[in-house]
């Protein structure tokens, strides 16, 4: 792996007194898809949310250790979480488009960050984001329709378009397909494959098949610790740790 995009060192996350993440250190590469797998409650989503400081919104959540984005401490004093989230986008488990038009869903981010010079420029940004998210052909004639009127899979691709419209460097996906049917899931997985060259993508998934299909590197979390991290092929065919082996062979989880 070349130079890491995100580097976490000795990260602990607390919810009040409870320790949700225990001493996690990981390098996340650019241009690859990194999957976090593990049983429910293992802390993989919690750790994902520390990477763009979405944990800040949870009362009582506390992060110690160091997380660097291109060498910059994202919990440092100079780092503005608002600016950070423009660089590290996020797609959520349940598609959550704004109850506004399709166009407005995508244009919102670029507008608040002042990325477009005028209407034509904004139109171009919206079209590009929707095209990259593979949604443009389906919605180009109804951009003023409500984003919430789309199907679940289309809504999720709209959310991906919304995330990439602000030109992030990293995209975090928190079980993006768990609310979708197999066909919509396949579309999202194709999309992840197409997007991975431009962004560092981190995906949390409950489906080991999905991790095996879309990711190049996989981290296995268990009880708040990162048990094993390596090439996806190695994790699934030749895990070093017994716990990883037990999990991927379906002993628990």
């Amino acid at each position, binding site marked *: 792996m070349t130079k890491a995009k995100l580097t976490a060192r000795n990260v602990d996350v607390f919810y009040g007194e409870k320790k949700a993440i225990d001493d996690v250190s990981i390098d996340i590469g650019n241009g690859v898809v990194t999957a976090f797998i593990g049983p429910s409650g293992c802390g993989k989503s919690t750790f994902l949310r520390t990477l763009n400081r979405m944990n800040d919104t949870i009362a009582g959540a506390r992060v110690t250790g160091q997380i660097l984005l291109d060498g910059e401490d994202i919990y440092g004093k100079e780092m503005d979480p608002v*600016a950070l989230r423009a660089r590290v*986008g996020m797609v959520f488990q349940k598609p959550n488009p704004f*109850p506004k038009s399709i166009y407005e869903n995508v244009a919102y981010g670029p507008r608040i960050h002042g990325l477009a010079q005028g209407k034509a420029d904004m139109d171009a940004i919206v079209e590009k984001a929707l095209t990259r998210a593979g949604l443009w052909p389906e919605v180009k004639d109804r951009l003023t329709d409500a984003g919430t009127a789309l199907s679940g899979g289309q809504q999720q691709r709209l959310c991906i378009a919304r995330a990439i419209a602000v030109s992030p460097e990293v995209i975090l996906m928190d079980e993006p397909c768990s609310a979708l049917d197999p066909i919509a899931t396949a579309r999202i997985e194709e999309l992840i494959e197409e997007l991975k060259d431009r962004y560092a993508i981190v995906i949390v998934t409950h489906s080991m098949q999905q991790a095996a299909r879309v990711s190049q590197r996989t981290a296995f979390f268990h009880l708040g610790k990162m048990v094993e991290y390596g090439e996806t092929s190695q994790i699934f065919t030749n895990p070093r740790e017994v716990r990883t082996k037990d999990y991927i062979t379906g002993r628990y989880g």
Partner: protein
Amino acid sequence: MSNTWQTPEMTKRIARRHAAEKRFRLAGLTAIVLSLLFLAVLLFIMLKNGLGGLDWAFLTGSDATSADAAGVWGALKGSFLTMLVTLLLSFPMGVLAAIYLEEFAPRSRWIDWVEVSINNLAAVPSIIFGLLGLAVFINTLNLPRSSPLVGGLTLALMTMPIIVISGRNAIKAVPPSIRDAALAVGASPVQTVFHHVLPLALPGILTGTIIGMARALGETAPLLMIGMRAFVATPPGGITDPSSVLPMQIFLWSDEIDRGFVQNTSAAIIVLLVFLLAMNGLAIYLRNKFEVRW
């Protein structure tokens, strides 16, 4: 019998349940009919007594010593100005307080205390607010007695907690996923609230506001304390002029011995009801206009 699998006990219980179902429907229907009947009788009496007095002279005139010359315009304008002051103060204050408490306030003992206080404030008897208004606005700040300004300020104190409580509920009902979505594209917390949460909560906030305003419109007790029961023969020119309000006018006329004022009282009640209906209608219109379905 087709249901051979049913035991006699079961059949008996099912019959009992059906009967209970019927009894409940009947009770519910009776409750509605009784309350509507009461309203209908009230309306009928008001219209019968008051409709005759409801002419142009009555609508444009102000209070007078003779029943024939007395009109409702002064009180109507007083009510309007008072409501305006109340709305302009309590709506922004109430909404801002609700947003702060729901979205920004850190969880602490101090905030818990503020919450309990606001809930208690909504339950304080209105006459106490009148005393407060008298002590603070008139005796301490020397604002003009009997004026819509002081009346509006006093009623705003009363209305604000209602707006805060309903506003908080409306804000709480906005799904957290919308906040996540906005924050994740790099919106600041304030942008998240004003671009996404508040528009979705607005219909609920408006409903609460109108309930509070309707209560304030019909209020008399606190206005007694700040001197809005005076005889005012000229309509107020502004919010600092002495004035009456509709419910107070009704109260004053109902006290008159002259028979002619009975008609005036009923006619003023009709005007007050129309005012209320117009306010509610506006609220429903605004609510539907801002309602976002998703």
